[in-house]
């Protein structure tokens, strides 16, 4: 019996996931709306003074995007688990880690990329200083895939549970802390006119490591929770 090549399996999976998202494209905007609303809460809570908002702008945008990503994580395997295609993925003869990497990539493309596009707007809402914006964007480009990869491992652990929302946050957030520290560190350094390369390199190193290890860990976690 022939199964087709791994490449074609990955392509089919990408195509399927992308078209599924496209058919429900209204839902894809929800994380963006969420992030905008979270950011909008800060001026209400802290008062509208531009100098203070400018000081917390980069960190607020980072946290808002992190939370939006966290809330969208739950959907990563939800529908696949419900219609049984997740089990088929696990049973398929192709390497599960690779297939999951495709799924995570689609998830990043459809949830994190719109967030990235809206990030300059969020920064502008909070009077983010112009020179910090490029650093913030680079930090986000490096950190959002990292967050998706780390998050995917934890989602895989909670996949069979009915009410996993709060628990997922409890599992994921401690692991998100280092990412947030380095991303915010780069932005703070830029705001003070200090060199920003070191924290960005740390993020890049973390991303390189996670790109290799997280899909493998995700596959192992999925096998545990589906066993």
């Amino acid at each position, binding site marked *: 019996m022939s199964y087709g090549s791994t490449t074609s399996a990955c392509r089919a999976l990408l195509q399927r996931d992308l078209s599924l998202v496209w058919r429900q494209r209204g839902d894809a905007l929800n994380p963006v709306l969420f992030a905008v609303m979270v950011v909008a809460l800060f001026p209400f809570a802290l008062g509208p003074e531009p100098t203070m908002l400018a000081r917390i702008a980069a960190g607020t945008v980072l946290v808002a995007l992190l939370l939006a990503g966290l809330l969208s994580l739950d959907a990563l395997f939800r529908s696949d688990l419900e219609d049984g295609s997740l089990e088929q993925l696990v049973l398929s003869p192709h390497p599960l880690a690779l297939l999951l990497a495709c799924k995570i990539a689609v998830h990043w493309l459809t949830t994190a990329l719109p967030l990235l596009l809206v990030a300059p707007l969020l920064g502008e809402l909070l009077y983010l200083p112009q020179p910090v914006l490029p650093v913030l964007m680079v930090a986000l480009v490096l950190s959002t895939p990292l967050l998706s990869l780390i998050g995917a*491992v*934890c989602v895989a*652990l*909670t996949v*069979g*549970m009915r009410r*996993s929302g709060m*628990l997922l946050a*409890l*599992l994921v*957030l*401690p*692991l998100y*802390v*280092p990412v947030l520290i380095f991303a915010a560190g780069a932005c703070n350094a830029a705001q003070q006119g200090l060199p920003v390369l070191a924290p960005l390199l740390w993020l890049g190193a973390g991303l390189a490591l996670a790109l290799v290890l997280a899909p493998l*860990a995700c596959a*192992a*976690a999925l096998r*545990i*929770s589906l*066993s």
Partner: protein
Amino acid sequence: MNPLVLWFHKLGSPPYFYRFAGRLLPWFWGAALAGLAIGLYGGLVLAPADYQQSDAFRIIYVHVPSAWMSLFIYAFMAVNGFIALVWRIKLSETLAMAAAPIGAAFTFICLATGSIWGKPMWGTWWTWDARLTSELVLLFLYLGVLGLHQAIEDRRQAARAAAFLALIGIVNLPIVHFSVNWWNTLHQGDTVKLFGPSLIDSRMLWPLLVMAVATKFLFAASLLSRARVDLLELESGKDWARQIALAEERA
């Protein structure tokens, strides 16, 4: 088979471990309580007062051993989790999960005593210093492991999933350990060194080392007690567990 290897294999069987742990327990509890008594007496009474902090430094005898234990227990949990995941040994699952609440308790004690110590010395209960923050993340990791273990119905699957999470979280251990060397912040650097002379007077050092050993015994005793109960619960359908329950009922 080599008798040592044979004994090790036997130890993996729950009824054998249950009896073995039962025999060890009184000794461990005894060593732990005696060690704690000696260490605390040495630390709180015999050790001289610090020239800067006077008597306030004595909280070190609780704070530092708990901090060491918080890392040690996490490593213990992760190693047992690894064994449970790779070789599917039931006992390792039980040990890893029994260690988690003890580790969380030590981490909490470490944070609480550090906070109490920080108030008079640093003038603040809490500071966002690298070591404090990473220790707090360690507490969250413990709580995450516990939460995941509670949330899954099937006990063995729950243990495996939580063990896996513990393994992922192990990246935090070197961060906690080296945080005072990597970032120069409010928390002081290492005073007690494994290699080379320690930066602490020997009259202050020996109670600390006694406390470190005593907390190890306390952990071992607490772990074995918890593991015995967990094993009974896990194997409640088995014959050996039923016989123990019947014997308890008769007694």
